[in-house]
């Protein structure tokens, strides 16, 4: 444990510090402080970073993965990558943004891996349930998420990533470009194509 950790032994919640007289000087350390402490070998500092940001990472991962194990795997992968590359965090942008890029990258890898598996293993039986579902019926039955997942599984990993970030996470094209490292024009074109493909997929499934 280094000096930072010792000066912050019993402050698990920022609210406690505000309530305790004489403790106001001990503000909760910033993400940058925690990163520095982690790089100095303080494991508890990294655990605090995880506690702070895991909710958002899990929320994003849950948009891409179907079951709890997959969500957990993605979240673990995100924080393992963050831990390994923590030295590369320069602090020019907030830690949250840096972590979001790692999250998107891990989700993209997950989608590509999942697609490879799906190409090898037929999932027709799984698709059959959703085949008769049209948009109106899905909305009425509260099964919008299921129908979106069904249609998205037919998109490429790139398209699925962009649609998820744009339509479900409501991120702007510029944000998506920054998160993926693709150009904004490229993201716009892919987003447009993805929407067209989705419409086709839903039309076809509705006509059947």
């Amino acid at each position, binding site marked *: 444990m280094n000096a930072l950790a010792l000066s912050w032994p019993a402050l698990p919640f920022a609210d406690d510090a505000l309530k305790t007289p004489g403790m106001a000087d001990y503000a909760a350390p910033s993400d940058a402080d925690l990163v520095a402490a982690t790089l100095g070998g303080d494991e508890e500092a990294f655990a605090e970073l995880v506690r702070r940001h895991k909710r958002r990472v899990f*929320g994003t991962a849950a948009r891409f993965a179907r079951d709890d194990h997959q969500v957990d795997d993605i979240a673990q992968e995100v924080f393992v990558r963050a831990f390994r590359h923590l030295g590369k965090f320069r602090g020019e942008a907030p830690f949250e943004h840096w972590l979001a890029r790692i999250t998107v990258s891990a989700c993209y890898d997950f989608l590509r891996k999942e697609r490879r598996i799906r190409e090898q293993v037929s999932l027709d039986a799984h698709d059959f349930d959703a085949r008769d579902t049209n948009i109106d019926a899905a909305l009425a039955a509260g099964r919008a998420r299921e129908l979106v997942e069904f249609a998205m599984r037919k998109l490429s990993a790139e398209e699925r990533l962009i649609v998820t970030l744009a339509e*479900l996470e409501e991120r702007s094209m510029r944000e998506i470009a920054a998160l993926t490292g693709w150009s904004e024009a490229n993201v716009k074109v892919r987003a447009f194509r993805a929407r067209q493909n989705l419409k086709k997929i839903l039309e076809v499934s509705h006509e059947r």
Partner: protein
Amino acid sequence: MNDNAEEKLDALFAAARADQCDTSRVEFGFETRLAARLREEGGGSVAAWAWKLCPFFAALALAAAWWGQVNLRAEATTEIISEATQGNAEQVLLAYMTGERR
């Protein structure tokens, strides 16, 4: 299915957005699982490096064996020549031909 399709798609996305997954169950004990994985990967790094260095050590062993073999042959040849030059060339040649010497 044009403008109508766009509207329906937007409505579908809006409904899917509203259907937020509750991840609190998966989040439970996450730090412990993550710490275990990080520790496991950290501990495994020495073994991983040792495994990666296997070809290098194998090549080193082969090179050492070859070097030893070459040195042995050179020593044997030197010994034969030195004995032959000392005047008992015939005996040395005989021993060499019958396989008593190598």
